[in-house]
């Protein structure tokens, strides 16, 4: 008994040694910076000006800043628009990829292309697709005779919003499809066989069997994607740079603009708001994911 306790304590010491590098790098480059951001948000901290403690004045400024509300609204609306589209499209792709088809592996590889392309590359490609004079989007419209005049995609708030939605959906749907595919593969074929014998049709089987059984996986994919989308920056930085008129400025991009101008206090306050939103999503993710169960 005593021997076991001793070896337990020794094991613990060894374990901490193994974990030390990970803990060090995470504390120094993630935990401390986040605390630093919270701390800085309490200061008037602008490059070349004296730093002064300002308590909550940066947050008071947020409340009256209509641009902040605009970027908060844009960010939430963007998440609320892209995620459902990604989920539906991802589900369709996953269902196709789960079929026993002759070229299944080739199809799966093809769907990975948008996932593998770097986001910035995808962003520049879509920027060119939306080009007013010679982009692919207007060319296709003209080809289909949908509209006589070319559309200035990135010129109006509404069309710029949907232009970004489409670009983001393109880049991220493969990820959703892969996750859902993994879920589909865990549903035993016999259940479908039985349901077929019972005389259900294709759609009944999808809504009565597939969807309910996939619910936990859908939930994980949903929250995973929401957390990723709520902090979006790079795609928007390239395609619209927040325009026109700041209408597509995400919270991350809004915070970046202040950091870039050297206003660290206000930029940090914006970052703190986004941090809290993402944190709330993460907590629900950890609950739904059931990770503690796996580790026993």
């Amino acid at each position, binding site marked *: 008994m005593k021997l076991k306790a001793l070896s337990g304590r020794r094991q613990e010491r060894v374990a901490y040694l193994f974990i030390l590098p990970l*803990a060090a790098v995470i504390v120094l480059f993630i935990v401390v910076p986040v605390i630093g951001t919270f701390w800085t948000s309490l200061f008037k901290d602008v490059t070349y000006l004296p730093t002064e403690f300002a308590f909550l004045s940066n947050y008071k400024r947020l409340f009256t800043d209509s641009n902040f509300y605009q970027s908060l609204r844009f960010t939430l609306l963007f998440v609320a628009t892209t995620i459902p589209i990604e989920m539906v499209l991802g589900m369709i792709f996953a269902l196709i990829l789960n079929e026993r088809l002759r070229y299944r592996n080739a199809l799966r590889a093809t*769907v990975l292309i948008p996932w*593998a392309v770097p986001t910035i590359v995808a962003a520049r*490609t879509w920027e060119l697709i939306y080009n007013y004079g010679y982009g692919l989007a207007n060319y296709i419209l003209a080809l289909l005779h949908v509209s006589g005049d070319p559309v200035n995609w990135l010129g109006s708030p509404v069309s710029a919003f949907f232009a970004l939605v489409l670009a983001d959906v393109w880049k991220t749907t493969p*990820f959703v499809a892969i996750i859902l595919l993994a879920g589909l593969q865990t549903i035993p074929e016999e259940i479908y066989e039985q349901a077929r014998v019972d005389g259900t049709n294709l759609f009944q089987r999808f809504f009565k069997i597939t969807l309910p059984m996939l619910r936990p996986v859908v939930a994980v994919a949903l929250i995973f994607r929401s957390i990723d989308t709520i902090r979006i920056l790079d795609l928007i930085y390239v395609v619209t740079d927040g325009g026109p008129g700041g209408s597509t400025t995400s919270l991350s991009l809004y915070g970046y603009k202040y950091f870039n101008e050297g206003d660290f206090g206000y930029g940090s306050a914006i970052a703190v708001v986004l941090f809290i939103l993402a944190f709330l999503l993460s907590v629900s993710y950890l609950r739904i994911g059931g990770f503690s169960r796996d580790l026993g």
Partner: protein
Amino acid sequence: MKEEATKKTLLVLGIIFMLVFCIAPFVWMITVSLSRNPDFLSGGVDFGATLANYVDVLTIKSLHFLEYLRNSLAVSGIVAAACAIVAALSAYAVSRLEFRGRLVLSLAVLAFSMFPQISLIGYLYKLMRTAGLINTYVALVFPYIAWTIPLGFWILLSYMMQIPKDLDDAALADGAGRFLIFRRIILPVAAPGLLSAVLLVFIAAFNEFLFALMLTTDQSARTIPVGIALFEGLHGQIPWGYIMAASTIASLPLVILAVFFQKYVIQDVTRGALKG
């Protein structure tokens, strides 16, 4: 049968849509990169097939593309290697050793991966500026390791959880120390997991944008994504031919890797999110 026919029609339509959707922008990127005139879609303009964009991007010194490429490969390579080692050490401890805080640590690591980068960058920028490290590899490498470690950790953890603990026990009985067991027994067995972690971390580091945007200032440390985002022509216009050629060079290796290792990528991406 009617239902079979419905299903087949839906499937064919779905496949066509899926293929066009996924491939079209990628093909468009390559097409423009091979044209002398990026505006070839507007009436009366010749396509002008050429490799000049590639030659220019790779040879015109003032575009700095090769330097961006070198920086990206160096930074991502260092990060992938370091991250895999650090992640493997901690995954080993969590998968086989009993210690207080085991569960909390694993969940915390997962939670850290969900922090918005913007909530770190202000502090990191000031830190690197104070340390005089702005525009160096060091300024990118350490934040990148911290940023990608959750990915490596969870991939390796799910691999190591599947390795029987009997292996450790047998070696312990023979008097081997924990580190020896890790290095000589578990690491070789977990080699496929290690490779996956290296691959996915490399891709993540290669794609990172915000840190590189703020922590580098010119070609001595600037990476490909920032280079491509800020690409400016020699004469003021947006040089689409160059940008698309650079984009193709930057993404083709990743696309080929993903297509080639399709099975493993799908498995590992799933591991990252669903934990095996």
